[in-house]
């Protein structure tokens, strides 16, 4: 059962990798677009997290080794040291996700306060600090 899964997987490996990368880049671009063009603060925050998500996905994608297994020494995979997926990116991604979450939380709290303070969530109307 495991074997045939691998068979299928290896067959479509290229497409999948491409798909992962493409998605990642696409997410980043979408996030960037949202940040740069949307006027609403909440949308900008959402754009930020999309952007982060893209980067995280990229991380995971890069970590993958063709036909690799999970980086765990389990019965049946004692000699899998050379064909297991690189664990480091996944660890990093976990950290990055946590950080991104924290950032989003702070951002949203700021948005709330800005809305209270200015009675608007349009970023181009919140320009009391300039020049």
């Amino acid at each position: 059962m495991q074997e045939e899964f691998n068979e299928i997987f290896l067959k479509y490996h290229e497409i999948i990798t491409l798909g992962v990368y493409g998605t990642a880049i696409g997410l980043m671009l979408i996030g960037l677009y949202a940040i740069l063009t949307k006027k609403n603060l909440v949308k900008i925050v959402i754009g930020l997290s999309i952007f982060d998500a893209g980067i995280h996905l990229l991380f995971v994608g890069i970590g993958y080794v063709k036909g690799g297994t999970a980086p765990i020494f389990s019965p049946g995979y004692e000699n899998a040291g050379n064909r297991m997926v690189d664990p480091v990116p996944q660890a990093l991604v976990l950290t990055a996700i946590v950080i991104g979450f924290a950032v989003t939380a702070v951002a949203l709290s700021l948005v709330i306060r800005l809305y209270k303070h200015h009675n608007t969530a349009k970023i181009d109307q919140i320009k009391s600090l300039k020049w």
Partner: protein
Amino acid sequence: MNIFFLIILIFFSGAILSFIINKIAPKFSGITTFITIAVVVFLFFTQIEINSITQFSLGGIQMQFGVNNYTYIFAILVLGLSLLASLYSIKYMQNNDRLGYFYSNFILTVTGMLGIIFSRDFISFFIFWEIMTWSSYLIVLYNGKHSSKSGMKYMIFSAIGAYAMLTAIVSIKGSYGTFIISDAIQQGAFNFSENIYIPIMLLIGFAVKAALMPLHVWAPNAYSKSPMSFTSIFSGAMSKMGILGMGLVLASVYSQTTNDNTFSVLVLKQVLGWLGGITAVMATIYALIQTDAKKLLAYSSVAQLGYIIVGLSTGTKLGVMAALFLAVIHAVFKGALFMVAGAVEKQVGTTDMTKISGLIRKMPFTFFTALVSIIALAGIPPLGGFVGKWMLYEALITESNNYFLVIVIFFSSTAAFLYSYRFLFGLFLGQEEKETEHVKEAPVTMIIPMVILALILIVTGAYPGILFEPIAHGMHYLGFSDVNWDMSVLVNVWGEESNMAYINLSIGVVFVVVFLFLTIKGYKGTKNVGTKDISTSGEIPTENENLTFQLDFFKPFERAAAPLYKRSMDKIWNDLGNALEAIFDFTRRIYTGNGQTYALFVIIFLVILLIFKNTLFTN
């Protein structure tokens, strides 16, 4: 402990002390200053031997202290003048507030000047130069909000000068690897055939302090706005620091230039000379339309510095000698004159000549000082000013064939008679006003310094040799061989001489004879009357008739010289300043305040870098 460090230490501690004492007993702040300077004067003239060098290192930079024959002239000048000025300012500054502030900065300024004289390396030179600059800036500010603008102008121009100097200094370090002045000169740092911009940069730096066109615009305001007891050293001594530097640089430029680039030196001479001449003329004609005595004196300082620079620019023996002589004499009489203005201001409350007149009977000693100083300023024999002027003209005519510059100088010094008379008349002569009836003579501690300076002028007029001796040594240090001088005979290179002894003899004899004649003859019949007792073309004026003539004093001359008054340097600088302000105001609009714009900046920056990465980041 080393004497140089000791002196600097005394100065700094004196500054701090006078600041603290002011908090306890404001009276003694000034006395502390005077004592501090007196102690230093004593130490200087007893302990320091000339040409002794002290090596030390600070911040990994080799530094040297020492006094040579050339700087010794300026040391005398600075110390003497600041001693008298500090004595003067005890009473003058009495019952002002912020005395500690004033006196500590006063001492710091003197420290800066003496440090400049001590330092034989560029870094300590620059350090003391800057200390002098900012402390004097703080004193210019002293008189409150009206002077903050002129103070800012002074600071900006000083900064321009100082940084031009610093550029030259670091590039000397870059190309010659030394900060020691004498080494740099020996390696030809000031040599036009080596590099042309180091000397020019240095000259610019010094020219600012020497108030040379077109960098002079700070001077009139700064001189007239700061307290007079300080202005007497501000204009008298501090401007001479610029002259010190210029003399040093020019002497080595002239002596070291080789034949292949005499042309550039010639250009330099002409440019400097003419700049000095134009400075003299413009400052003079602006001086004679002033109605405020302080402003008048300030402009006249600028004019006098113009003469000095002309003298330096000739680079000939007589010219440089004239310049140094004028520098010392100018320090003396201008110090005295600013003290006079200060005394009037202290006693009457203003120096606006349209408000006061006829103080001669009230303040005889002050008038005496003013008279002597003015005679010296106008260069009328037999006083010291004449000696300097004589040498200057002879140098221009006989040594450097700069004939039309002679005319320019002569014009300005003839026009100087106008403002000299304006000063004397405006303050001391003319009708006696009711407002100034209560006026008394200034307190004695203010009179003493003034009278001392006046006496110095008289003596140096009779025996200029007293000053020639140190000056000759100094010029020998600058590289002028066999500078010959006589106690009272002035000789130019054509052999014509002007013998002060005979002149004084003749003047003295005639004076005694005629004075006795006039005084004794009909002594009983002579009755003194006040200024109201006059006959205006026949009829006797009534009591409340206005007989004061102070406004539009030289209107005819103004009309005649109208074209000269048209364009002024200040306006040009102001326009420049406004243009810069506009640029600054435009620049800050980059920060639009919209977060998205900033984000856009980031992305654009990133993209640009990525596009040009191959050109930008290659190894």
